[in-house]
C-alpha cells in the first residue's frame, strides 16, 4: 500500500486528501487533466472527463504522464480499466488534423486510415467535406474542407469523439499598435502566464476567478496580438468598464476604442460589442452581424465565455481563422455546451484554482451565511395553496425577509453593503425600508454609473440591486452582500454574486455573503443547491435562524 494523497475511484473521480503532506504536489500533477469538481475543506474531488483529457493533450501532456501522475500519488491500486480508458481517450485527440495545404487550402488529414474512413463516412460531417486529396505528405488520408465549415467540422468531430487539432493557423488581421503601460502597476505573474499560454496555443480559454483581473489578461493578449480587436462582452456597463480599463492599462486612446451597443454604434480599431446587440434579431435576421466582418480583426475576445449565447456560437464557427481568447470564471455551463466552447473557441489554456489565488491574497475570503426565516402563518397558508409556479415568488418576497435584511444592514452599519434581489416590487420595498437607492433594469446607464461611482467612493454605502448587477460590475469595496432572492439558485449566478465580494479589501477583512431563505418552502430547496455549490467551492457555510441575528458577532 502506497501512502499517497489520491484515491482514484472507478467512476472516474479522483479524491485528493488536502491535509496530506504530498497534497500540493499531487494537485499540481493532476491539475492539467483533471477538472476540480468540488473543493470542500478536507477532500477535493476531481473528475476525469474526455474534455479535460483532451485539454491536457492540447497543452502537450500525453497519456503516459497522466497515468504516471495517478499511479505515483494514488493510495490504492488504480482500476486497470480506468487506465486503459484514459489512454484510449487521450489517443483520440489529434488523430485528425486541420491543416493548410498550399494547393487545396483547408484540409482534414489523418495518419490513421481507419479513423479517417470512419469519420468521413459519418452522416454528421456530410456536406462539410470536399474532394479527397491523394498527395498529402505524412498522412494516410486527407480530404479538402470548405473554409466556411472549419468551425462546424470541429464541432461535429468533437461530437464523434475524434476532436481535431487545428494547425490551419490564423490570419494576422489588420495590424494596430497596442502596448501595456505598466506605470504604477504591473502584470501579476499568473496574468502574464495566462496571456502567454493563450498566445502560444493560438486560441483558447483562460479560466480565472472573478476579481482576479481577467480584463487585464485580455489587455495583455491584445498587446501580444498588436492587431485590431473585437471584444464581446455581456452588457453595456461591462463594455464601459472594459473601455475604462483599457484606457488605463494600455497605450490605446479614447479615439481608438469604439462601443457597439444598443446606444452607440461605433466601429474603431478596438471595438467593444455586447452579446445583446449582436444577437438582436429583426424579421429573422441578425442585422448587426456584419460587425464581425466590418474590419479585418486580428483578435476576438470573448468575455464571460460561460454565458456565450447560442447565436454567438454559430457566428464563432465562421470566425475560425481569427485568434480567439475566451475569458471566464468557470467552464461549467448550465446548458452543458462545454464541448462547443472547446471546439469553437479552443481548449483551456490557463486555469488557476480559486482557492490558490485567494491564498495569494488577490481575492478576499468569504464567509457565507444562510439566514432562515419562518413564513408568518397567513403567508404560509397562501403559500400552501398557491400554484407551483407562483410559489417561489411568494416565498421569496415575504415581508419577513425585508425585516431580516433591515437587521443585517443595521448589524453591518458603515460597511459597503449590497442587497441583491430578483423581484422588482421587493427591491422597491427594500429600497424604501432601507432608505437606499435601487438599481434595476430600467435605471438609465448614466444614473447607474453615477450610483456605482458614489458607492465606490464610499459616498453611499448601501445599494439595492437587481440581477442587472450580476455581471461585470466593478464594486471594489462591497464587503457585505445580502441576497434576498435569486433565479432559482443557479450555480452561475451564485458564482457571479460571490464574485462581487471577492475583490481584495483594503483592510483584509472577510467578506460576508448572507442569503435569506424561507424554511420549508421551495426557497429552502434552492438554498440547498446554493449551499452545496458554495461548500464545494470551499467557502465556509453556516446556517442560522433569523431570531439569532441579534447574537451574531462580526
Amino acid at each position, binding site marked *: *500500500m*502506497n501512502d499517497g494523497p489520491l*484515491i*482514484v*475511484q*472507478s*467512476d472516474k*473521480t479522483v*479524491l485528493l*486528501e488536502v491535509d496530506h503532506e504530498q497534497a500540493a504536489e499531487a494537485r499540481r500533477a493532476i491539475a492539467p487533466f483533471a477538472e476540480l469538481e*468540488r473543493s*470542500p*475543506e*478536507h*477532500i477535493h*474531488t476531481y473528475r476525469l472527463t474526455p474534455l479535460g483529457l483532451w485539454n491536457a493533450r492540447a497543452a502537450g501532456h500525453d497519456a503516459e504522464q497522466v497515468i504516471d501522475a495517478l499511479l505515483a500519488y494514488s*493510495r*490504492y*491500486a*488504480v*482500476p*486497470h*480499466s480506468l487506465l486503459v480508458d484514459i489512454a484510449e481517450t487521450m489517443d483520440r485527440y489529434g488523430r485528425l488534423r486541420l491543416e493548410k495545404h498550399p494547393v487545396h487550402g483547408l484540409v482534414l488529414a489523418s495518419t490513421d486510415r481507419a479513423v479517417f474512413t470512419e469519420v468521413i463516412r459519418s452522416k454528421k460531417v456530410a456536406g462539410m467535406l470536399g474532394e479527397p486529396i491523394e498527395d498529402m505528405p505524412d498522412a494516410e488520408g486527407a480530404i479538402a474542407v470548405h473554409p466556411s465549415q472549419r468551425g462546424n467540422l470541429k464541432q461535429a468531430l468533437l461530437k464523434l469523439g475524434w476532436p481535431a487539432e487545428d494547425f490551419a493557423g490564423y490570419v494576422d488581421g489588420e495590424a494596430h499598435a497596442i502596448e501595456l503601460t505598466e506605470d504604477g502597476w504591473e502584470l501579476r505573474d499568473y496574468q502574464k502566464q495566462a496571456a502567454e499560454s493563450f498566445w502560444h496555443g493560438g486560441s483558447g480559454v483562460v479560466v480565472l476567478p472573478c476579481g482576479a483581473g481577467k480584463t487585464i489578461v485580455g489587455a495583455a493578449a491584445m498587446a501580444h496580438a498588436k492587431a485590431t480587436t473585437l471584444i464581446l462582452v455581456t452588457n453595456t456597463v461591462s463594455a464601459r468598464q472594459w473601455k475604462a480599463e483599457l484606457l488605463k492599462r494600455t497605450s490605446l486612446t479614447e479615439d481608438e476604442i469604439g462601443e457597439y451597443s444598443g446606444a452607440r454604434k461605433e466601429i474603431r480599431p478596438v471595438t467593444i460589442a455586447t452579446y445583446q446587440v449582436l444577437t438582436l434579431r429583426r424579421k429573422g435576421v441578425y442585422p448587426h452581424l456584419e460587425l464581425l466582418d466590418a474590419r479585418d480583426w486580428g483578435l476576438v475576445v470573448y468575455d464571460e465565455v460561460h454565458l456565450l449565447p447560442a447565436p454567438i456560437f454559430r457566428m464563432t464557427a465562421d470566425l475560425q481563422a481569427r485568434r480567439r481568447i475566451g475569458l471566464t470564471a468557470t467552464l461549467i455551463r448550465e446548458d452543458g455546451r462545454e464541448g462547443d466552447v472547446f471546439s469553437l473557441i479552443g481548449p483551456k489554456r490557463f486555469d488557476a484554482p480559486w482557492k490558490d489565488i485567494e491564498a495569494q491574497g488577490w481575492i478576499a475570503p468569504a464567509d457565507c451565511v444562510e439566514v432562515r426565516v419562518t413564513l408568518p402563518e397567513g403567508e404560509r397558508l397562501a403559500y400552501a395553496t398557491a400554484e407551483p409556479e407562483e410559489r417561489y415568488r411568494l416565498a421569496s418576497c415575504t415581508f419577513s425577509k425585508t425585516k431580516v435584511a433591515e437587521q443585517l444592514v443595521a448589524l453591518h452599519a458603515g460597511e459597503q453593503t449590497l442587497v441583491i434581489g430578483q423581484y422588482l416590487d421587493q427591491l422597491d420595498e427594500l429600497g424604501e425600508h432601507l432608505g437606499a437607492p435601487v438599481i434595476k433594469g430600467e435605471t438609465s446607464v448614466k444614473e447607474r454609473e453615477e450610483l456605482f461611482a458614489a458607492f465606490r467612493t464610499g459616498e453611499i454605502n448601501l445599494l439595492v440591486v437587481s440581477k442587472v448587477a450580476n455581471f461585470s460590475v466593478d464594486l471594489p469595496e462591497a464587503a457585505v452582500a445580502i441576497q434576498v432572492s435569486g433565479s432559482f439558485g443557479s450555480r452561475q449566478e451564485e458564482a457571479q454574486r460571490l464574485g462581487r465580494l471577492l475583490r481584495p479589501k483594503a483592510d483584509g477583512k472577510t467578506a460576508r455573503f448572507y442569503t435569506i431563505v424561507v*424554511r*420549508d418552502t421551495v426557497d429552502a430547496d434552492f438554498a440547498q443547491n446554493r*449551499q*452545496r455549490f458554495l*461548500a*464545494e467551492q470551499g467557502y*465556509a*457555510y*453556516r*446556517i442560522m435562524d433569523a431570531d439569532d441575528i441579534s447574537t451574531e458577532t462580526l
Partner: protein
Amino acid sequence: MPASSAPRTLADQLRSWPDDRLAALLEARPDLAVPAPTDSAQLASRAVVRVSVARALDLLDRLESETLLAVVQTGPASTEDLEQVLFADPGAVTAALDRLYGLALVWGTTDAWRATTITADLVGIPAGPSRAETERALARIDERARTILDHLDETDAAGTVTQARRPIRIADATTPTEQLLAHRLLEPTDDRHVVVPWSVRLHLRGGRSTREAIDDVPALADSARETTLVDRAAAGAAYEFTRRTEMVLEAWSTRPPAGLRTGGLGVRELRAVAELVHADPAIAALLVETAAAANLLAVGMNDDLDAAWLPTDAYDTWASSSPAERWTVLAKAWLDNPRLVSAVGGRDGDRPINALSPGLERSWLPGDRRTTLSTLLTLEPGRVLAAGTGLGSLARRLRWQHPRRPEARLSLVPGTVDEAAAIGLLGLGGVSSFGRALLLHEDPIPVLTALLPTPVDHVLIQADLTAVAPGPLEQDFARQLSLLADVESRGGATTYRFSVGSVRRAFDSGWSTDEVKAFLAASSRTPVPQALDYLVDDVARRFGTLRLGSAESFLRSDDETALTELMHHAAAANLRLRRIAPTVIVSDVPLQVLLPRLRELGAAPVVEAADGTVRVARPEEHRSRTPRAAPPSGLTDARRAARTTAVISAIRAGDRAAAQRPARAPAKTPADVMSALREAAEARTEVWIGYLDNHGTSVERVVRPLEVGGGQLSAYDERNEEVRSFAIHRISEVRRPKA
C-alpha cells in the same frame, strides 16, 4: 525401472510392482481405481480400456508422446534403439520411458519395451514400405507429389482424400495423391485420411522421428517486475473483484433480475450489472458466473413468484467474512468452475449466449485452467510474462506440454490469463503471492490480508454534506452509515452524501436526533460541519408532524359535548372508539356495524360519502348480475363426445393389456423376443410388450407388429392409434395373446 526378469504380460508386470509405484499409477490415472479392481489382472485389463488410455495420453508432453509413438512403431525395442530414433538427449528418453512405464502405457524391460495394443491402436501410424522401396518410390514420383509429401511431412498433419482405402496400382496413378498412395509413401488411416507412414517419415527426417529436438521445452518470454508491484496490482484487482461481487449481490437482494425461461440472465440485466460496477460486460459476466459457481447466487423466486436470480443464504455468511476470506471463496470457485464464461455475449448459431445459461459446462476447463496457471507458477519470483510476447510463448509452452490437446482449447489461454488478472490471481502478468498460495493449496488469507487496505472506522465529513471514507469501511460501520447517507461514489474510498431523504431514512428506522448526532461525532475525524447539524435538526423538527393511521370509520361532529358523551357511554365500550381530535372520533368497526349500534345508543348519525356529501340512509336495494348466456349446445356436445371417446379407448387398451398378460409363456430372451415379434408380424396379431421408455421406466403396451428389422420394431399402437417404432433391445418381454 523395470525388473530384470521379463514379464509375460502387463498384468504380470503390475503384479511385480512395489506398492509406491502402484500408488503413483493410481494417482496419475485415478479412473483405474474406481471401483477398486479385484486383482492385478483386472487392473491390467482396465488399464487398456480405450477411454482410460485416451485420458492418459492427454497427460503426455511432446517428448513423451513421441517416445510412445516410437515404442509403438518399433517395439519391442530396447532403450538404445529408441535413443537412435528419437531426436532427444538419452537422459530425456530414459525419463520419458520411465514416465510411460509408470503410467502403464508401455511395459516390458529396458531391452524390449512394448506398448499396449490399445495404445498402438490410438497413436500408431502405418509402418510403411521398406527402406529400399521408399528410396525407389521417392525417385519415381513427380514434383507435385513430392511437394504434397513434404508439406504433410513438415506439418505432421493428416491429409484428407476421398476413398483413401481404394487400391491403386502404380500404373493407374494419375494425380499426385494417387501416386503417393500407390507408392505407399502415404498410407490411409481410415476412409478419408492419409498420413506419412513411419518408415517414410524416418527416411525423410534423416533417420529420426522428428526434425527438431523434442526435449527442448519452449521457454516463457518473461521480463523483470518487482514482486511488490505484482502483488499490489493483484491485490487491487482482488479487492475490486470482491467489492464488485458484493455490490451486485447487494443490489440484487432488493431488486432481483428475472431469470430467463431458458435459464440464464438477460442481456439487458447483464448490461445493467456492467453499468453498476463500471466495467465492461465481460467482467460483469465473470462476476455473476463466479458468484453462481461459489453458490452465492442461485435462481429463486421474487415477490411475484417468478423465477429470479437471488443471493443465496450462503451469501450472508460470505458477506460477513473478511475481504481476504471472501476473495478466497470466489477465487476457488473460479478455479473449479467448469463453465466457459468467455462464451457469454457470443452467439450459438443465431441464439445469443446468456450469462448463467445452461450448456456452458466443459469438463476439461478446470484442468486446463490449472495447467495454464501452474505453467505461470514456474516463472521465477520477480519475473512476469513479458507484455507483448508473453502470451504467445505461454501458448507454445502449453502446446509442447499437451500436444494432443485441440487447438480450440489452447486458444482459450489468453482469456484465462485475463480472467485470472481480473480476479487477482495474476498481477502485471505474474502470479501474485496469494495466488501462488491458493494454487499450491496453501492458505492465501494471511498473505492477502496483509496486502489489502486496512479497514478504517472513520470518515471525513465535509461542509458540502458529504462524508468520505478514505478506505474500506468496517462492515457494521458501513451498514450504519449507509442508512444515514447515500453512497455517491465507490472504489478504494467511498463517498457518502447526506440529504434530507437519507437522514429521514435513519429516523424512520428508529434513530433519534441524539443518536444520529452522537454517531456522526464519533465517526468523523473532523468536526461535524454546522450545516449538517442543522440539517439533522431540521429533519427532526419535521419528522412525525404528520400522523398516519388506519380506521374503518369516523365520526365527526361540531358538538364536542355530544362526542364526549358518546365516548363515555357504557354500551359504547365495544365499539372501539378513539378520539383523535376534539371533534373527531375514529373506530375500526366497519360502518355497517357501527351505524345500527349508534342508532341503538340513541344517536342520530347520517352517513357521509367520500366527497363529504350526506348520503340518505335509505336501505340499499341489491341486484345480482344477469347470468351469461350458455354456450351453444352443439359445441359442448361435440367436445364432450370427443373427450369421452379418448377416455374409453384408453380404458379399452388398458383392459386388453390386463386380460392378455397371463397368456402363454412370455418371450424374455432376445432370441425369443425377436421370434415372437416376427411371428406376430406374420400373423398380424396383437401382442403385449413390456418396454423401457426413454426415461427408463417400464411401460406395457398392446401393439400390432407390422415389421421387424434393423433393431427396430414398427408396430401399430392401440393406445395412441398410430404407427410407432420401438427399439428391440428395449423390449423386455413379449406375450402372445390368449388363444
